[in-house]
């Protein structure tokens, strides 16, 4: 005799399981019907903005987000159009992308690789983002770039300065508009030679992680090529807050230049400490002691306050640039938000427009078509002057700015002054340069996902 009996609940359970089983193949069929990951089907297309919204770079992330929102407005034909009016490619009409209204979702990278990957994954899988844009860290950029490559999504990097992003870690689906550590070295070297001479002894303090190492390598190479001697290179833990123990040995090291390969809070504190120890008032080897901060940002300049006066560094962009693209962007951003844009904001704005333009020119959202449209693309009118998206490594090549902390700023925004606009030819290097992974570094194959 069997104890089994048919119950209403049992029938429902069995039905549900059977139903799911029948539906399962259809889910896969529906998915595979798309030619590529997150192919937009309705009247809208969703972009994913992955920026630090919490953590120490939250202010920079916020600036990136403001710029990305502005770009979306301009793409949808709202506002004054910004750089759509100055961009040399005229594919964008202010009617969205391929006629679809642009919407966006945001993720919080927290400036942590794992958190950034998780937020990018969520935007791709849950929100159907067709591309990922933004970020403020090379570690994050490399991690998210790898994820987007696997997912078949285009990644437009934000502020990432390590050589590796478009060097040994370059990917076919990833693109960098921002400049890199090699370019900083190449742009700074002639200015350093002019202002400080060819007979200098440099002491490096370097943040002990990937970006710090590549920047130190780049600056050491370009300054030694000038004839400078490198006295010492000291790695400082990323979590350091007080640099007095690292600055004190500089005093009697025989060096006459201190290079701070630090970013963000590290740079603000190390520069503040160096000034406290009177380094800039010191005379060493018969020369005035100098400090160089190879990578500057507006927020770091604000954080460092008066300490940056006279200190040289480099930038990807500065709002004081007077070309037509820059003027249009500053006007649009300034009128909407009441402040000039930072260089990370400009990069993120340009990247959104460049992606949208590539889709329009390709006539498709297919990532491989977008890759093809961006590779070797030459343009102007986005604020940096003439720019090339090099096909071999997906790195933008454009002029690089050498800047100096202003002696007498008149307001909170002109704390940095442009010393020189280094022409693109001086910062160009071969795609198989040893600092960029050498001959082994390749982009790999394009992945369209799905």
């Amino acid at each position, binding site marked *: 005799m069997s104890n089994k009996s048919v119950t209403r609940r049992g029938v429902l359970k069995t039905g549900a399981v059977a139903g799911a089983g029948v539906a399962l193949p259809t889910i896969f069929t529906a998915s595979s019907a798309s030619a590529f990951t997150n192919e937009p089907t309705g009247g809208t297309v969703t972009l994913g903005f992955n920026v630090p919204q919490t*953590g*120490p*770079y*939250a*202010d920079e992330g916020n600036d990136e987000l403001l710029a990305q929102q502005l770009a979306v407005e301009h793409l949808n034909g709202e506002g004054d159009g910004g750089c759509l009016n100055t961009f040399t490619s005229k594919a964008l009409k202010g009617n969205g992308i391929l006629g679809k209204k642009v919407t966006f979702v945001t993720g919080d990278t927290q400036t942590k690789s794992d958190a950034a990957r998780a937020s990018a994954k969520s935007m791709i899988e849950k929100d159907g983002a067709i591309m990922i844009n933004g970020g403020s860290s090379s570690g994050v950029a490399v991690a998210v770039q790898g994820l987007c490559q696997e997912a078949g999504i285009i990644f437009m990097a934000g502020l990432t300065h390590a050589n590796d992003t478009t060097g040994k870690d370059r990917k076919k689906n990833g693109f960098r508009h921002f400049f890199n550590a090699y370019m900083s070295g190449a742009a700074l070297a002639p200015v350093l030679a002019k202002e400080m001479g060819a007979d200098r002894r440099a002491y490096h303090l370097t943040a002990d992680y990937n970006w710090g190492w590549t920047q130190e390598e780049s600056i050491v190479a370009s300054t030694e090529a000038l004839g400078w001697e490198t006295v*010492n290179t*000291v*790695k400082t*833990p990323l*979590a350091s*807050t*007080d640099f*007095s*123990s*690292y600055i*004190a*040995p500089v*005093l*009697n090291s025989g060096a006459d230049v201190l290079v701070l390969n630090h970013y963000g*809070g590290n740079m*603000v*504190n190390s520069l*503040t*400490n160096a000034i*406290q*120890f*009177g380094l800039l*008032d*010191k005379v060493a080897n018969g020369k005035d002691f100098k400090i160089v901060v190879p990578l500057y940002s507006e*927020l770091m300049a*604000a*954080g*460092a*306050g*008066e*300490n940056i006066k006279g200190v040289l560094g480099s930038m990807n962009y500065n*709002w004081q640039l007077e070309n037509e693209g820059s003027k249009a962007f*500053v*006007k649009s951003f*300034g*009128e909407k938000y009441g402040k*000039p844009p930072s260089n990370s904001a400009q990069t993120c704005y340009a990247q959104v427009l460049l992606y949208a333009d590539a889709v329009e020119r390709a006539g498709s959202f297919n990532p491989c078509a977008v890759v093809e449209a961006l590779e070797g693309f030459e343009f102007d009118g986005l604020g940096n002057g003439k720019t090339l998206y090099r096909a071999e490594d997906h790195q933008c090549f454009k002029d690089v700015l050498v800047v100096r902390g202003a002696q007498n700023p*008149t*307001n909170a*925004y*002109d704390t940095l002054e442009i010393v020189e606009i280094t022409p693109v030819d001086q910062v160009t290097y071969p795609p198989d340069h040893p600092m960029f992974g050498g001959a082994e570094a390749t982009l790999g194959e394009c992945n369209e996902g799905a």
Partner: protein
Amino acid sequence: MDAILLQILNGLDKGSAYALIALGLTLIFGTLGVVNFAHGALFMIGAFCAVTLQRILNLSFESVDESQTDFLGNPLKVKTPYVEAWFGPEAGAVIIDWSVPLAVLFAIPIMLFVGYAMERGLIKFFYKRPHADQILVTFGLAIVLQEVIKYFFGANPIQTPPPEALRGSLDLGVMVGFDPNAIIYPIWRLVYFVFATVIIGGVFAFLQFTTFGMVVRAGMADRETVGLLGINIDRRFTIMFGIAAAVAGLAGVMYGPLNPPNYHMGMDFLVLSFVVVVVGGMGSLPGAVLAGFLLGILESFASTTWATTTIPGINQIIIYLVAIIILLTRPRGLMGRKGVMED
């Protein structure tokens, strides 16, 4: 030799901050038996008292200067601080210049109140709960406090420079017979060390030489007996919580000119300060101070090029390494007493 002296000075300076925070932590633990993970946040709030006072003193009215333009090409709005309008440009500028020392006075009542409110509003409900609960709730409170500060002040560091007269550095080497420029040390770091010594001395004198302090010490030794004598020890302990908060806050105010305050500076110090307390001996005030200076000096020496090239990474682990060695050889810490945190 000069390099060694410089690192000792650096160590005393770092140690000052560790000792001040650890002193407050130990004071709270010794009196109330609470492990307060929000203590770093109190240090951070102190630093932001200086930022707040700086902003108050810089409150300005705007006037339009037609001769200059802003970044959009509109006539420039020139800001003039009210204090400069009220007291004259020179006196006003001096007041603004001395905002950090003035913030010490500004921070004391605020920090006493914050400490009092924290103890009465939240922590008193956790006295009878396990230490794990106390750690969780105070750690949560620390996160809330830092996010509140971030909401109002942003994530970027904010400079609170020392007065003009106390900027720059002194050639200490010349004073003790070394060559010029051999031992140059920032003035404000010396000020910080002296300030820390005065505060630490003040707290010890308060506990040692006042009736209030005597009762508190008696309460720390045997709370129950003091209660049986008809003394309201809880009220005194609440006041001690306020004093511990003020000590952490003042440490933060004076620390701002060394490294510009940001919302997570408390967390940066918290773990280190706990190690200091444990190494010094839970509940031991002299232990906390001794361990603070000791670990500060060791950390400075471990950061020298000689140390990092001999043992790579030593600068990152030295404090924890010393903590392990001390706890293995002296399980109660340097000056810990029997019976504290032992069932």
